[in-house]
Protein backbone atom coordinates (compact mmCIF):
# COMPACT_ATOMS: atom_id res chain seq x y z
CA UNK A 1 0.00 0.00 0.00
CA UNK A 2 2.82 2.41 0.80
CA UNK A 3 4.17 2.13 -2.72
CA UNK A 4 0.77 3.11 -4.07
CA UNK A 5 1.42 6.82 -3.72
CA UNK A 6 4.61 8.80 -3.63
CA UNK A 7 6.18 12.07 -4.62
CA UNK A 8 9.62 12.65 -6.04
CA UNK A 9 9.57 16.43 -6.32
CA UNK A 10 11.74 18.28 -3.81
CA UNK A 11 12.05 21.93 -2.90
CA UNK A 12 15.82 22.13 -2.47
CA UNK A 13 16.70 21.61 -6.17
CA UNK A 14 20.25 20.35 -5.88
CA UNK A 15 23.14 20.55 -3.47
CA UNK A 16 22.29 22.81 -0.55
CA UNK A 17 25.62 22.47 1.22
CA UNK A 18 28.30 23.28 -1.35
CA UNK A 19 32.06 23.63 -1.56
CA UNK A 20 32.47 26.09 1.37
CA UNK A 21 31.22 23.33 3.67
CA UNK A 22 33.59 20.82 2.07
CA UNK A 23 36.48 23.26 2.61
CA UNK A 24 35.37 23.82 6.19
CA UNK A 25 35.28 20.05 6.77
CA UNK A 26 38.83 19.84 5.38
CA UNK A 27 40.10 22.71 7.54
CA UNK A 28 38.50 21.31 10.69
CA UNK A 29 40.03 17.94 9.85
CA UNK A 30 43.51 19.42 9.33
CA UNK A 31 43.19 21.44 12.54
CA UNK A 32 42.18 18.48 14.68
CA UNK A 33 44.48 16.01 12.93
CA UNK A 34 47.61 18.16 13.23
CA UNK A 35 47.07 18.77 16.93
CA UNK A 36 46.30 15.13 17.71
CA UNK A 37 49.37 13.81 15.89
CA UNK A 38 51.82 16.38 17.27
CA UNK A 39 50.64 16.04 20.87
CA UNK A 40 50.53 12.25 20.74
CA UNK A 41 54.10 12.19 19.38
CA UNK A 42 55.03 14.47 22.28
CA UNK A 43 53.33 12.25 24.85
CA UNK A 44 54.75 9.08 23.32
CA UNK A 45 58.32 10.38 23.25
CA UNK A 46 57.92 12.12 26.61
CA UNK A 47 59.26 15.36 25.11
CA UNK A 48 59.37 18.41 27.35
CA UNK A 49 60.96 20.90 24.97
CA UNK A 50 58.92 22.77 22.38
CA UNK A 51 59.63 20.87 19.18
CA UNK A 52 59.26 22.44 15.72
CA UNK A 53 56.55 19.85 15.01
CA UNK A 54 54.48 20.96 18.00
CA UNK A 55 55.03 24.59 17.08
CA UNK A 56 53.89 23.95 13.53
CA UNK A 57 50.89 21.89 14.66
CA UNK A 58 49.70 24.56 17.12
CA UNK A 59 49.93 27.26 14.50
CA UNK A 60 48.28 25.09 11.84
CA UNK A 61 45.45 24.03 14.13
CA UNK A 62 44.61 27.59 15.14
CA UNK A 63 44.88 29.10 11.66
CA UNK A 64 42.87 26.36 9.94
CA UNK A 65 40.02 26.31 12.47
CA UNK A 66 39.82 30.11 12.38
CA UNK A 67 39.77 30.06 8.59
CA UNK A 68 37.22 27.26 8.75
CA UNK A 69 34.94 29.49 10.77
CA UNK A 70 35.12 32.07 7.97
CA UNK A 71 33.93 29.48 5.46
CA UNK A 72 31.27 28.14 7.80
CA UNK A 73 29.78 31.53 8.60
CA UNK A 74 30.20 32.67 5.00
CA UNK A 75 28.03 29.81 3.81
CA UNK A 76 25.05 31.00 5.88
CA UNK A 77 22.37 32.91 4.01
CA UNK A 78 22.29 35.31 6.95
CA UNK A 79 25.95 35.42 8.06
CA UNK A 80 25.43 38.41 10.31
CA UNK A 81 23.02 36.41 12.43
CA UNK A 82 25.53 33.65 13.22
CA UNK A 83 25.61 34.75 16.87
CA UNK A 84 22.10 33.37 17.27
CA UNK A 85 23.58 29.86 17.46
CA UNK A 86 25.76 31.02 20.31
CA UNK A 87 22.79 31.97 22.47
CA UNK A 88 20.14 29.43 21.44
CA UNK A 89 21.43 25.95 22.10
CA UNK A 90 19.57 22.89 20.91
CA UNK A 91 21.04 19.79 22.49
CA UNK A 92 19.51 17.47 19.90
CA UNK A 93 21.32 19.27 17.09
CA UNK A 94 24.77 18.03 16.08
CA UNK A 95 25.51 21.53 14.82
CA UNK A 96 24.78 23.01 18.25
CA UNK A 97 26.97 20.41 19.94
CA UNK A 98 29.67 21.14 17.38
CA UNK A 99 29.46 24.86 18.04
CA UNK A 100 29.85 24.16 21.75
CA UNK A 101 32.89 21.98 21.06
CA UNK A 102 34.37 24.61 18.75
CA UNK A 103 33.92 27.34 21.32
CA UNK A 104 36.04 25.25 23.69
CA UNK A 105 38.44 24.08 21.01
CA UNK A 106 39.40 27.48 19.56
CA UNK A 107 40.54 28.87 22.95
CA UNK A 108 42.49 25.62 23.45
CA UNK A 109 44.33 26.12 20.15
CA UNK A 110 44.97 29.74 21.12
CA UNK A 111 46.47 28.61 24.42
CA UNK A 112 48.62 26.04 22.64
CA UNK A 113 49.90 28.83 20.37
CA UNK A 114 50.63 30.99 23.43
CA UNK A 115 52.70 28.21 25.00
CA UNK A 116 54.64 27.50 21.85
CA UNK A 117 55.19 31.08 20.73
CA UNK A 118 55.77 32.73 24.09
CA UNK A 119 59.23 33.97 23.07
CA UNK A 120 58.08 35.34 19.73
CA UNK A 121 55.11 37.13 21.30
CA UNK A 122 57.38 38.57 24.01
CA UNK A 123 59.78 40.03 21.45
CA UNK A 124 56.89 41.61 19.58
CA UNK A 125 55.51 43.05 22.81
CA UNK A 126 58.96 44.18 24.05
CA UNK A 127 58.31 47.81 23.17
CA UNK A 128 55.05 47.94 25.09
CA UNK A 129 56.29 47.20 28.57
CA UNK A 130 52.89 47.33 30.26
CA UNK A 131 51.23 44.83 27.90
CA UNK A 132 54.31 42.61 28.17
CA UNK A 133 53.88 42.64 31.93
CA UNK A 134 50.27 41.48 31.66
CA UNK A 135 51.24 38.85 29.11
CA UNK A 136 53.93 37.43 31.38
CA UNK A 137 51.49 37.39 34.29
CA UNK A 138 48.95 35.43 32.24
CA UNK A 139 51.61 33.03 31.03
CA UNK A 140 52.72 32.24 34.57
CA UNK A 141 49.14 31.19 35.36
CA UNK A 142 48.66 29.33 32.07
CA UNK A 143 51.88 27.36 32.40
CA UNK A 144 50.61 25.74 35.57
CA UNK A 145 47.78 24.07 33.67
CA UNK A 146 49.73 23.16 30.53
CA UNK A 147 49.51 19.35 30.96
CA UNK A 148 45.74 19.65 31.41
CA UNK A 149 45.39 21.92 28.37
CA UNK A 150 47.39 19.49 26.24
CA UNK A 151 45.20 16.53 27.19
CA UNK A 152 42.05 18.58 26.65
CA UNK A 153 43.36 19.70 23.26
CA UNK A 154 43.77 16.11 22.11
CA UNK A 155 40.29 15.19 23.33
CA UNK A 156 38.61 18.18 21.71
CA UNK A 157 40.61 17.77 18.51
CA UNK A 158 39.15 14.26 18.19
CA UNK A 159 35.69 15.65 18.99
CA UNK A 160 36.03 18.30 16.27
CA UNK A 161 37.11 15.78 13.64
CA UNK A 162 34.37 13.33 14.59
CA UNK A 163 31.64 15.95 14.87
CA UNK A 164 32.13 17.02 11.26
CA UNK A 165 31.30 13.43 10.32
CA UNK A 166 28.28 13.21 12.62
CA UNK A 167 27.10 16.57 11.29
CA UNK A 168 26.37 15.10 7.89
CA UNK A 169 25.79 11.47 8.83
CA UNK A 170 22.45 12.42 10.45
CA UNK A 171 21.07 13.45 7.05
CA UNK A 172 18.84 10.42 6.55
CA UNK A 173 17.81 11.26 3.00
CA UNK A 174 21.29 10.62 1.58
CA UNK A 175 22.59 7.02 1.74
CA UNK A 176 26.25 7.97 1.12
CA UNK A 177 26.15 10.33 4.11
CA UNK A 178 23.90 8.41 6.46
CA UNK A 179 26.47 5.82 7.51
CA UNK A 180 28.17 5.04 10.80
CA UNK A 181 31.56 4.95 9.10
CA UNK A 182 31.58 8.63 8.15
CA UNK A 183 32.74 10.07 11.53
CA UNK A 184 35.54 7.50 11.69
CA UNK A 185 36.55 8.23 8.12
CA UNK A 186 36.64 11.95 8.89
CA UNK A 187 38.82 11.43 11.96
CA UNK A 188 41.28 9.28 10.03
CA UNK A 189 41.42 11.47 6.91
CA UNK A 190 41.77 14.49 9.21
CA UNK A 191 44.77 12.78 10.78
CA UNK A 192 46.41 12.21 7.41
CA UNK A 193 45.79 15.78 6.19
CA UNK A 194 46.87 17.15 9.58
CA UNK A 195 50.06 15.12 9.61
CA UNK A 196 50.96 16.30 6.12
CA UNK A 197 50.21 19.97 6.90
CA UNK A 198 52.02 20.01 10.23
CA UNK A 199 55.14 18.32 8.84
CA UNK A 200 55.24 20.68 5.85
CA UNK A 201 54.90 23.77 8.06
CA UNK A 202 57.47 22.40 10.51
CA UNK A 203 60.12 21.98 7.83
CA UNK A 204 59.27 25.13 5.88
CA UNK A 205 58.83 27.69 8.64
CA UNK A 206 60.47 26.16 11.68
CA UNK A 207 63.46 24.66 9.92
CA UNK A 208 62.85 21.16 11.14
CA UNK A 209 65.24 18.76 9.44
CA UNK A 210 63.22 16.62 7.02
CA UNK A 211 65.01 13.56 8.41
CA UNK A 212 64.80 14.35 12.11
CA UNK A 213 63.48 11.82 14.57
CA UNK A 214 60.02 13.45 14.77
CA UNK A 215 59.70 13.49 10.99
CA UNK A 216 60.72 9.85 10.86
CA UNK A 217 58.00 9.02 13.36
CA UNK A 218 55.45 10.85 11.22
CA UNK A 219 56.61 8.96 8.14
CA UNK A 220 56.16 5.70 10.01
CA UNK A 221 52.60 6.48 11.10
CA UNK A 222 51.54 8.05 7.78
CA UNK A 223 51.19 4.77 5.96
CA UNK A 224 49.06 2.91 8.51
CA UNK A 225 46.77 5.96 8.66
CA UNK A 226 46.48 5.90 4.88
CA UNK A 227 45.78 2.16 4.93
CA UNK A 228 42.98 2.60 7.48
CA UNK A 229 41.58 5.45 5.39
CA UNK A 230 41.46 3.28 2.27
CA UNK A 231 39.89 0.50 4.30
CA UNK A 232 37.16 2.80 5.65
CA UNK A 233 36.38 4.12 2.16
CA UNK A 234 36.15 0.54 0.91
CA UNK A 235 33.81 -0.28 3.81
CA UNK A 236 31.62 2.69 2.92
CA UNK A 237 31.41 1.52 -0.67
CA UNK A 238 30.71 -2.09 0.25
CA UNK A 239 28.03 -1.12 2.77
CA UNK A 240 26.26 0.77 -0.03
CA UNK A 241 26.76 -2.05 -2.49
CA UNK A 242 25.20 -4.68 -0.22
CA UNK A 243 22.58 -2.34 1.23
CA UNK A 244 18.95 -1.72 0.35
CA UNK A 245 17.60 -0.55 -2.98
CA UNK A 246 18.33 3.13 -2.33
CA UNK A 247 21.84 2.48 -1.08
CA UNK A 248 22.61 0.37 -4.13
CA UNK A 249 21.50 3.09 -6.55
CA UNK A 250 24.00 5.50 -4.98
CA UNK A 251 27.00 3.30 -5.84
CA UNK A 252 26.81 4.84 -9.31
CA UNK A 253 28.54 7.85 -7.72
CA UNK A 254 31.71 5.74 -7.56
CA UNK A 255 31.27 4.31 -11.01
CA UNK A 256 30.47 7.02 -13.52
CA UNK A 257 30.09 10.73 -13.95
CA UNK A 258 31.99 13.72 -12.67
CA UNK A 259 31.93 12.55 -9.03
CA UNK A 260 33.46 9.20 -9.95
CA UNK A 261 36.29 11.11 -11.65
CA UNK A 262 36.69 13.27 -8.57
CA UNK A 263 36.88 10.13 -6.48
CA UNK A 264 39.24 8.04 -8.62
CA UNK A 265 41.55 10.82 -9.81
CA UNK A 266 41.33 13.13 -6.82
CA UNK A 267 40.98 10.87 -3.79
CA UNK A 268 42.63 7.70 -5.06
CA UNK A 269 45.07 9.09 -7.64
CA UNK A 270 46.32 12.29 -6.05
CA UNK A 271 45.56 11.48 -2.41
CA UNK A 272 46.90 7.95 -2.21
CA UNK A 273 48.62 7.12 -5.51
CA UNK A 274 50.94 10.12 -5.85
CA UNK A 275 52.49 9.92 -2.34
CA UNK A 276 52.94 6.16 -2.74
CA UNK A 277 54.64 6.56 -6.11
CA UNK A 278 56.87 9.40 -4.91
CA UNK A 279 57.97 7.58 -1.80
CA UNK A 280 58.34 4.01 -2.99
CA UNK A 281 58.27 3.60 -6.75
CA UNK A 282 60.93 6.07 -7.85
CA UNK A 283 63.77 4.97 -5.64
CA UNK A 284 65.47 6.30 -2.53
CA UNK A 285 66.94 9.37 -4.22
CA UNK A 286 63.55 10.80 -5.21
CA UNK A 287 61.89 9.69 -1.99
CA UNK A 288 64.42 11.62 0.11
CA UNK A 289 64.26 14.82 -1.94
CA UNK A 290 62.58 17.98 -0.68
CA UNK A 291 60.39 18.22 -3.74
CA UNK A 292 58.99 14.76 -3.14
CA UNK A 293 58.36 15.60 0.50
CA UNK A 294 56.36 18.76 -0.21
CA UNK A 295 54.66 17.30 -3.26
CA UNK A 296 53.42 14.22 -1.44
CA UNK A 297 52.32 16.36 1.53
CA UNK A 298 50.30 18.62 -0.73
CA UNK A 299 48.93 15.61 -2.58
CA UNK A 300 47.70 14.18 0.72
CA UNK A 301 45.89 17.40 1.61
CA UNK A 302 44.44 17.70 -1.89
CA UNK A 303 43.26 14.11 -1.71
CA UNK A 304 41.46 14.75 1.57
CA UNK A 305 39.87 17.88 0.08
CA UNK A 306 38.69 15.78 -2.87
CA UNK A 307 37.30 13.21 -0.45
CA UNK A 308 35.29 15.89 1.38
CA UNK A 309 34.11 17.36 -1.93
CA UNK A 310 33.09 13.92 -3.14
CA UNK A 311 31.23 13.11 0.07
CA UNK A 312 29.42 16.46 0.15
CA UNK A 313 28.48 16.66 -3.54
CA UNK A 314 27.91 13.01 -4.43
CA UNK A 315 26.26 12.49 -1.05
CA UNK A 316 23.67 15.17 -1.62
CA UNK A 317 23.18 14.37 -5.29
CA UNK A 318 22.12 10.80 -4.66
CA UNK A 319 19.20 11.18 -2.32
CA UNK A 320 16.07 9.18 -1.77
Amino acid sequence: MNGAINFTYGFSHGVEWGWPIAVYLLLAGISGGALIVALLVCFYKKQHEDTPLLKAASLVSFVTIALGMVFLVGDLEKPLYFWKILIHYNFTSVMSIGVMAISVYIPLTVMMCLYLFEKEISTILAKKIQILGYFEMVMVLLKKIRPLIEVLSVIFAVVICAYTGFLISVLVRFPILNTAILPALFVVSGLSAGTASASMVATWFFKEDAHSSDMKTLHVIEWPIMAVEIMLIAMLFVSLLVGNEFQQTTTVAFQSGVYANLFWFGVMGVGFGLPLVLNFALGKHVANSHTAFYLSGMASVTGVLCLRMFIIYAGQTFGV
Partner: protein
Amino acid sequence: MENDGKRRAFLKVLGLGSVTLGTAGYSVAMAAEKVEKKPHYGMIFDQNKCVGCTDCEVACRKVNEVPEGQVRLYLENKTDPATPMEKRYVRVSCQQCEDAPCVAVCPSKACHRDGKTGIVTMNPDDCIACKYCIVACPYDVRFINHKTKAAENCNFCLNTNLAKGKEPACVESCKYKALVFGDLNDENAYINQILHVKDSVRMKPTYGTKPSLRYIPVVKVGV
Protein backbone atom coordinates in the same frame (compact mmCIF):
# COMPACT_ATOMS: atom_id res chain seq x y z
CA MET B 1 -17.43 27.39 75.89
CA GLU B 2 -13.88 26.22 75.69
CA ASN B 3 -14.96 23.04 73.94
CA ASP B 4 -17.17 25.02 71.66
CA GLY B 5 -14.20 27.15 70.55
CA LYS B 6 -12.14 24.10 69.86
CA ARG B 7 -14.93 22.52 67.90
CA ARG B 8 -15.39 25.68 65.89
CA ALA B 9 -11.67 25.85 65.11
CA PHE B 10 -11.70 22.19 64.16
CA LEU B 11 -14.60 22.71 61.80
CA LYS B 12 -12.89 25.73 60.34
CA VAL B 13 -9.76 23.74 59.58
CA LEU B 14 -11.82 20.93 58.18
CA GLY B 15 -13.77 23.27 55.96
CA LEU B 16 -10.79 25.23 54.71
CA GLY B 17 -8.80 22.07 54.24
CA SER B 18 -11.43 20.39 52.18
CA VAL B 19 -11.86 23.48 50.04
CA THR B 20 -8.14 23.84 49.36
CA LEU B 21 -7.57 20.12 48.81
CA GLY B 22 -10.63 19.92 46.64
CA THR B 23 -9.62 22.81 44.41
CA ALA B 24 -6.08 21.55 44.27
CA GLY B 25 -7.32 18.13 43.24
CA TYR B 26 -9.65 19.69 40.71
CA SER B 27 -6.92 21.79 39.17
CA VAL B 28 -4.66 18.74 38.91
CA ALA B 29 -7.50 16.92 37.17
CA MET B 30 -7.98 19.95 34.90
CA ALA B 31 -4.29 20.01 34.06
CA ALA B 32 -4.34 16.32 33.21
CA GLU B 33 -7.36 16.89 31.02
CA LYS B 34 -5.64 19.79 29.26
CA VAL B 35 -2.55 17.72 28.46
CA GLU B 36 -4.79 15.08 26.99
CA LYS B 37 -6.69 17.58 24.92
CA LYS B 38 -3.68 19.31 23.37
CA PRO B 39 -4.46 19.29 19.66
CA HIS B 40 -2.53 17.32 17.09
CA TYR B 41 -3.37 18.79 13.74
CA GLY B 42 -3.30 16.61 10.70
CA MET B 43 -4.40 16.69 7.12
CA ILE B 44 -5.67 14.18 4.60
CA PHE B 45 -4.94 14.37 0.90
CA ASP B 46 -7.39 12.24 -1.05
CA GLN B 47 -5.92 11.31 -4.41
CA ASN B 48 -9.30 9.98 -5.54
CA LYS B 49 -10.76 13.48 -5.39
CA CYS B 50 -7.84 15.64 -6.52
CA VAL B 51 -8.07 16.75 -10.16
CA GLY B 52 -4.83 18.73 -10.19
CA CYS B 53 -6.40 22.16 -10.61
CA THR B 54 -3.68 23.72 -8.37
CA ASP B 55 -6.14 26.09 -6.69
CA CYS B 56 -4.49 25.01 -3.43
CA GLU B 57 -1.05 26.13 -4.67
CA VAL B 58 -2.39 29.53 -5.72
CA ALA B 59 -4.27 30.08 -2.46
CA CYS B 60 -1.22 29.10 -0.39
CA ARG B 61 1.10 31.50 -2.19
CA LYS B 62 -1.40 34.33 -1.82
CA VAL B 63 -2.25 33.82 1.85
CA ASN B 64 1.29 33.11 3.03
CA GLU B 65 3.00 35.64 0.77
CA VAL B 66 5.40 33.09 -0.68
CA PRO B 67 7.79 34.83 -3.10
CA GLU B 68 7.47 34.43 -6.85
CA GLY B 69 8.89 31.16 -8.09
CA GLN B 70 8.76 29.48 -4.68
CA VAL B 71 6.14 27.25 -3.11
CA ARG B 72 5.22 25.78 0.25
CA LEU B 73 2.88 23.41 -1.46
CA TYR B 74 3.20 21.73 -4.84
CA LEU B 75 1.06 19.28 -6.77
CA GLU B 76 3.19 16.73 -8.54
CA ASN B 77 1.66 14.98 -11.51
CA LYS B 78 2.35 11.31 -10.98
CA THR B 79 0.14 10.05 -13.79
CA ASP B 80 1.44 6.80 -15.19
CA PRO B 81 2.45 7.42 -18.85
CA ALA B 82 1.05 3.98 -19.69
CA THR B 83 -2.44 5.00 -18.56
CA PRO B 84 -2.64 8.72 -19.38
CA MET B 85 -6.38 8.88 -18.76
CA GLU B 86 -6.00 7.90 -15.10
CA LYS B 87 -4.72 11.17 -13.69
CA ARG B 88 -2.87 10.99 -10.43
CA TYR B 89 -1.66 13.96 -8.46
CA VAL B 90 0.24 14.07 -5.18
CA ARG B 91 0.49 16.87 -2.68
CA VAL B 92 4.11 17.80 -1.92
CA SER B 93 4.46 19.79 1.28
CA CYS B 94 5.71 19.64 4.85
CA GLN B 95 4.56 16.36 6.37
CA GLN B 96 4.27 17.82 9.88
CA CYS B 97 6.21 14.94 11.43
CA GLU B 98 5.64 14.09 15.07
CA ASP B 99 9.36 13.29 15.32
CA ALA B 100 10.50 16.08 13.04
CA PRO B 101 14.18 15.92 12.00
CA CYS B 102 14.16 19.64 11.14
CA VAL B 103 13.22 20.54 14.73
CA ALA B 104 15.86 18.16 16.06
CA VAL B 105 18.73 19.54 13.99
CA CYS B 106 17.98 23.29 14.06
CA PRO B 107 20.92 24.83 15.95
CA SER B 108 19.13 28.05 16.84
CA LYS B 109 15.69 26.63 17.71
CA ALA B 110 14.18 28.74 14.92
CA CYS B 111 12.52 25.63 13.59
CA HIS B 112 10.27 24.60 16.43
CA ARG B 113 6.99 23.06 17.44
CA ASP B 114 4.38 25.69 18.22
CA GLY B 115 3.58 25.57 21.93
CA LYS B 116 -0.19 25.79 21.62
CA THR B 117 -0.93 23.75 18.53
CA GLY B 118 2.09 21.46 18.21
CA ILE B 119 2.47 22.50 14.58
CA VAL B 120 6.04 22.48 13.19
CA THR B 121 6.77 26.06 12.23
CA MET B 122 9.51 28.66 11.91
CA ASN B 123 10.65 31.74 13.70
CA PRO B 124 12.26 33.61 10.77
CA ASP B 125 14.07 36.04 13.08
CA ASP B 126 16.07 33.28 14.77
CA CYS B 127 16.86 31.43 11.55
CA ILE B 128 20.47 31.88 10.44
CA ALA B 129 19.77 29.99 7.21
CA CYS B 130 22.36 27.27 7.75
CA LYS B 131 20.15 24.97 5.64
CA TYR B 132 20.62 22.11 8.09
CA CYS B 133 16.83 21.58 8.33
CA ILE B 134 16.56 21.45 4.55
CA VAL B 135 19.13 18.68 4.16
CA ALA B 136 17.87 16.86 7.25
CA CYS B 137 14.25 16.69 6.03
CA PRO B 138 13.63 13.22 4.55
CA TYR B 139 10.91 14.69 2.33
CA ASP B 140 12.90 17.64 0.93
CA VAL B 141 9.97 20.00 1.45
CA ARG B 142 11.77 22.92 3.12
CA PHE B 143 13.34 25.92 1.39
CA ILE B 144 14.96 29.28 2.02
CA ASN B 145 12.45 32.07 1.40
CA HIS B 146 14.17 34.51 -0.98
CA LYS B 147 12.58 37.51 0.71
CA THR B 148 13.02 36.70 4.40
CA LYS B 149 16.24 34.66 3.88
CA ALA B 150 14.84 32.24 6.42
CA ALA B 151 13.92 28.58 6.02
CA GLU B 152 10.22 27.92 5.56
CA ASN B 153 7.72 25.09 5.45
CA CYS B 154 3.98 24.50 5.26
CA ASN B 155 2.72 25.17 8.78
CA PHE B 156 -0.98 24.68 8.10
CA CYS B 157 -1.29 28.50 7.77
CA LEU B 158 -0.53 28.78 11.48
CA ASN B 159 0.19 32.53 11.36
CA THR B 160 -2.33 33.38 8.70
CA ASN B 161 -5.61 31.53 8.23
CA LEU B 162 -5.44 29.44 11.39
CA ALA B 163 -4.75 32.52 13.48
CA LYS B 164 -7.96 34.02 12.11
CA GLY B 165 -9.92 30.90 12.99
CA LYS B 166 -10.17 29.75 9.39
CA GLU B 167 -9.07 26.50 7.77
CA PRO B 168 -5.71 26.42 5.94
CA ALA B 169 -5.84 28.24 2.60
CA CYS B 170 -5.40 25.07 0.53
CA VAL B 171 -8.28 23.32 2.30
CA GLU B 172 -10.48 26.39 1.97
CA SER B 173 -9.80 26.70 -1.73
CA CYS B 174 -10.22 23.04 -2.69
CA LYS B 175 -13.41 22.72 -4.73
CA TYR B 176 -13.34 18.93 -4.67
CA LYS B 177 -12.86 18.42 -0.94
CA ALA B 178 -9.68 16.48 -1.61
CA LEU B 179 -8.17 18.03 1.51
CA VAL B 180 -9.42 17.58 5.05
CA PHE B 181 -7.84 19.36 7.98
CA GLY B 182 -8.52 18.72 11.64
CA ASP B 183 -7.43 17.72 15.11
CA LEU B 184 -6.38 14.08 15.20
CA ASN B 185 -6.74 14.09 18.97
CA ASP B 186 -10.42 15.04 18.72
CA GLU B 187 -12.34 11.78 18.32
CA ASN B 188 -15.36 13.58 16.87
CA ALA B 189 -13.43 15.54 14.25
CA TYR B 190 -14.35 14.89 10.63
CA ILE B 191 -10.73 13.96 9.87
CA ASN B 192 -10.97 11.06 12.31
CA GLN B 193 -14.30 9.92 10.90
CA ILE B 194 -12.65 9.67 7.49
CA LEU B 195 -9.56 7.92 8.82
CA HIS B 196 -11.83 5.35 10.49
CA VAL B 197 -13.47 4.33 7.23
CA LYS B 198 -10.70 4.89 4.66
CA ASP B 199 -7.31 3.30 4.19
CA SER B 200 -4.65 5.96 4.34
CA VAL B 201 -0.88 5.94 4.20
CA ARG B 202 2.03 8.04 5.37
CA MET B 203 4.85 8.98 3.05
CA LYS B 204 8.20 7.23 3.59
CA PRO B 205 7.16 5.62 6.89
CA THR B 206 10.52 3.85 7.14
CA TYR B 207 12.14 7.06 8.35
CA GLY B 208 10.10 6.81 11.54
CA THR B 209 9.23 10.49 11.57
CA LYS B 210 5.47 9.84 12.01
CA PRO B 211 4.07 12.39 9.55
CA SER B 212 0.71 13.99 10.38
CA LEU B 213 -0.18 14.18 6.72
CA ARG B 214 -2.16 11.19 5.49
CA TYR B 215 -2.65 10.20 1.89
CA ILE B 216 -5.59 8.25 0.48
CA PRO B 217 -4.18 6.76 -2.73
CA VAL B 218 -6.07 5.68 -5.81
CA VAL B 219 -5.96 1.91 -5.66
CA LYS B 220 -7.41 0.18 -8.65
CA VAL B 221 -7.79 -3.52 -8.15
CA GLY B 222 -9.03 -4.05 -11.67
CA VAL B 223 -12.68 -4.42 -12.63
